[in-house]
């Protein structure tokens, strides 16, 4: 193990990273744990699987809360921009900036303002999702056929009725698509919450200024990916169930 992490050349490298470290963290050195050639130590995994429970729940909560908040804000902004076209460009640019800032930096930029903890992580993660959701809601609304809107107006639907009965239902596929992308990416990025002590699976990858060892990284990373894929599947199902006319279209073209 020690040779795989030759001194961890952080300019700030502190302490020895090696067998001693793992002994300390895991209580006992298992045979496979000590051998650097071993990518995955089954013995360790079966023995310590429990320690991933709480971080997984924390990660899940971080993601769900952040995406919910992000969706509420982005959806509201999109409706505003739909109504007041002048807002479209500034909102796109603004959410774009929030999206472009790497999450690690974002977390830490919030430190002087909100300190460490879950709130900080949730603010940064929600800010990250804004752009994805906002952009998808807007393009969903923009793709509604002009003739359907014209017909709706001609039938005497008010602007609000057109929005809720025609435009938004037709934009569902893209809105859910945005939620899907936002959620999957947030699952991956939420591992970084460890940098602001907000818990999550990142704690099993990196803790106390050190990397843990490959087996833990693989398990934590694997759980995060599975969680992302599970969300992906859920949204796909929602998308299909919420848009029966799309299935009809697919069948019609087949």
């Amino acid at each position, binding site marked *: 193990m020690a040779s*795989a*992490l*030759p001194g*961890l*050349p*952080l*300019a*700030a490298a*502190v302490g020895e990273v090696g067998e001693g470290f793992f002994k300390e963290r895991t209580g006992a050195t298992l045979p496979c744990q000590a051998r650097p050639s071993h*990518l995955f130590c089954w013995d360790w995994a079966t023995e310590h699987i429990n320690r991933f429970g709480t971080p997984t729940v924390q990660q899940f909560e971080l993601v769900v809360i952040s995406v919910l908040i992000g969706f509420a804000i982005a959806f509201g902004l999109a409706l505003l921009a739909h109504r007041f076209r002048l807002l479209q460009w500034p909102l796109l640019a603004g959410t*774009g*900036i929030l*999206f*472009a*800032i*790497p*999450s*690690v*930096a*974002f*977390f*830490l*930029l919030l*430190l*002087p*303002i909100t*300190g*460490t903890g879950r709130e900080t992580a949730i603010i940064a993660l929600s800010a990250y999702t804004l752009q994805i959701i906002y952009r998808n809601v807007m393009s969903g609304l923009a793709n509604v056929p002009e003739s359907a809107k014209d017909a709706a107006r001609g039938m005497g639907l008010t602007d609000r009725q057109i929005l809720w009965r025609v435009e938004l239902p037709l934009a569902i596929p893209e809105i859910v698509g945005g939620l899907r*992308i936002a959620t*999957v*990416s947030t*699952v*991956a*990025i939420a*591992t*970084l919450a*460890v*940098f602001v002590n907000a818990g999550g*699976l*990142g704690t099993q*990858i*990196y803790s106390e*200024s050190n*990397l*843990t*060892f*490959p087996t833990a*990284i*693989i398990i*934590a*990373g694997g759980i*995060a*990916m599975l969680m*992302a*894929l599970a969300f*992906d599947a859920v949204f796909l199902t929602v998308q299909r169930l919420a848009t029966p006319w799309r299935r009809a279209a697919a069948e019609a073209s087949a």
Partner: protein
Amino acid sequence: MAPGGGGGVGVSAFLPHPFFAGFGGAIEFIFNEQESTVTGGKKVGGIEQVLELAWTQIEVSLLALALAILIAVPVGLYFGHKGTGELVAVGIGNAGRAVPELAAIALIAAVIGVGVVTLTIVLAVLGIPPILTNTFVGIRQVDRAPVDAARGIGMTEPEIVRKVELPMAVPSIMTGIRGASINIIATATIAPLAGVLTLGDFILGENVYGADGVLAGAILVAVLALIFEFALAGLQRRLTSKGLRLQAQ
């Protein structure tokens, strides 16, 4: 990690609001070399170290982005034009998003070891999915009528790709490249974990740089990311034909 308070008077005087007072020390840290508040005696911060670390991050990121583009765009163009491999192209994009960059970097650090070359390759791999998917989808979404017309006037298939499909797919491809750039910069920020010192070193090295250093790192990384974003957005505008821009309005 308490808000850093130790900074000099110089810069912080311009940040009157208590909320932003915490940033004063960080800005001081960026411009003036100082003794580490943590390890004592060691000289840290200052414009010189900032530029050095920034340069590494820019170099690694640009190389990785270029590599990702060189691989993903041709592949996306090929399959997009042929219209096959939709599941693979879109699947790669989805899977790529699900990879936690922290786990990726940590694993590289723990298993393969360190170095600029390995890091560049890893970053390029992380940049490929969004570019590939967006190129593929961009080409597929090109209106079939102009493509048919191009074939009708006798363009060869490579000509169709170059002169018809590619220009029309530029906005989508550029969106993919911007997404890749964001991924790459963000991951390069935690590259010090794998032994390559980028601006992220300030962020990850609180033990050396102190709270001011961490905040300074965050500011610098954010600025760098935005510079990349604006540069690519500008490039996207320049590369998008005026006709397409008008159509979008």
